């Protein structure tokens, strides 16, 4: 199968400091990839290069079979059009939910489909309401974000991205600023997305997510991919000494391994797995 995303020898420098030293990876459609690694290892920078929030210093990106000409950093109408095309197909969710405080929940969700894809308002609203029902927040439709809990805000941020019908979703530590009891609801939503076949790249500190939802785990260390492979292998039997060191310093991985199929069929819930692991 043709990869959805191909990354070849991606490098990123800030001034004279190179923080990504040539990353290469293929992501197949439907893959759920967890990215783990120490603080400062370049995980966020890598994600941000994929939707070009950061302009790579060099390297090749190919999305959905088309090479991405990201060009030089700077302005230009044609460059912006190309980047908008890419970003409208790659959703990104941040650690700090970044909902727009001056817009209601529904306005947050319909903004991008209406403005970027020219979806008529009634259609965008109908789709947004469907998404809200799905996450059980239909009654928050006209609330402002400040009235929502952190977990609710982050779930709205996720469906705000989904409203663009992206082919790839990027998550950057989306549960890190949540109270522990709110982490489960966000991870559950991500697990159900994974079960539906969404292609996902998630930087995470939640080992239970990496273990039970992701199909592949990538370990970043010092701006390179130090180890990668099927999640159960990387997390349970890491080959590299530095992966072992990193994993032994993070929370022990407890709880049964749960497959996506089990989550889908309702046999297992990530939240329970989490509460067992917490």
């Amino acid at each position, binding site marked *: 199968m043709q990869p959805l995303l191909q990354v070849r020898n991606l490098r990123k420098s800030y001034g004279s400091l190179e923080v990504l030293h040539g990353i290469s990876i293929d992501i197949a459609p439907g893959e759920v990839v967890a990215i783990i690694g120490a603080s400062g290892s370049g995980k966020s920078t890598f994600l941000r290069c994929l939707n070009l929030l950061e302009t790579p210093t060099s390297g090749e990106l190919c999305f959905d079979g088309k090479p991405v000409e990201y060009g030089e950093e700077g302005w230009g109408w044609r460059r912006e059009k190309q980047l908008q095309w890419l970003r409208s197909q790659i959703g990104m969710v941040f650690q*700090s939910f*970044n909902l727009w405080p001056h817009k209601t929940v529904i306005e947050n969700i319909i903004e991008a489909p209406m403005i*970027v894809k020219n979806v008529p308002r009634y259609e965008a609203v109908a789709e947004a309401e469907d998404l809200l029902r799905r996450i059980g927040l239909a009654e928050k439709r006209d609330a*402002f974000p400040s009235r929502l809990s952190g977990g609710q805000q982050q779930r709205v941020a996720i469906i705000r991205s989904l409203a663009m019908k992206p082919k790839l979703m990027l998550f950057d530590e989306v549960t890190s600023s949540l109270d522990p009891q709110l982490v489960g609801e966000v991870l559950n939503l991500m697990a159900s997305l994974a079960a539906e076949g969404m292609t996902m790249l998630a930087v995470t500190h939640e080992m239970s997510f990496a273990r039970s939802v992701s199909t592949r785990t990538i370990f970043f260390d010092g701006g390179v991919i130090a180890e990668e492979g099927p999640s159960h292998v990387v997390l349970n039997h890491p080959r590299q000494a530095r992966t072992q060191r990193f994993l032994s310093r993070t929370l022990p991985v407890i709880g049964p391994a749960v497959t996506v199929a089990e989550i889908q069929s309702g046999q297992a819930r990530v939240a329970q797995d989490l509460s067992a692991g917490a």
Partner: protein
Amino acid sequence: MQSVFASLPGFLYATWLTIEIAVLVILLSWGFGLVAALGKRSRIAILRVPCDLYIWFVRGTPAMIQIFAVYFGLPQFGISMSPFVAGVITLSLNSGAYVAEIIRGGLMAIPKGQYESPIALGLSHAQSFRRIILPQVARIILPAITNEAVATLKNTSLLSVITVVELTFHAQIVIAKTFQPFQFYILAALIYLLLTTLLTRASALLEARNAVRS
């Protein structure tokens, strides 16, 4: 008292001119201020340096000198304007420099994530700025921008020195005829007070409405 009542229609007309000038100047100052604020944030030196100089010069010199320089000074180079036009332009440029600093502060108060999330969803930079950033900046700066508008309204009285017959100059004309400076300066002051009070009340209402909608 008789003469005060008799003079009211004239004062009404002068008040209207003051309002006209103030509204024009306030709107223009927002335009100048926005451009200068964005220019000052630019990474490109040919945009940033002129904006920097403009803000620095205007805030560091008296408004009165600026008005004299434009109205009396520019005709030396063949640029003459009516008192009204010269006054409106000078006051707008003057207030614009203060507005620029207010807007710059507002832009800095917006978290980085608010700039990134619309871009990540595919909005253009212009769309993100206009639809996501600017409305938030407007709310943050409302109190400061209201103060500046009040100052501007009062500063329109400076235009009396270049013969714009706004409220202050009109009062002086009437006083020259009636020799009743106390009554007419108080009348002018009360009219300014009414106008500035309306302005601050409107701003407070807007602020209350924003507080509900967030």
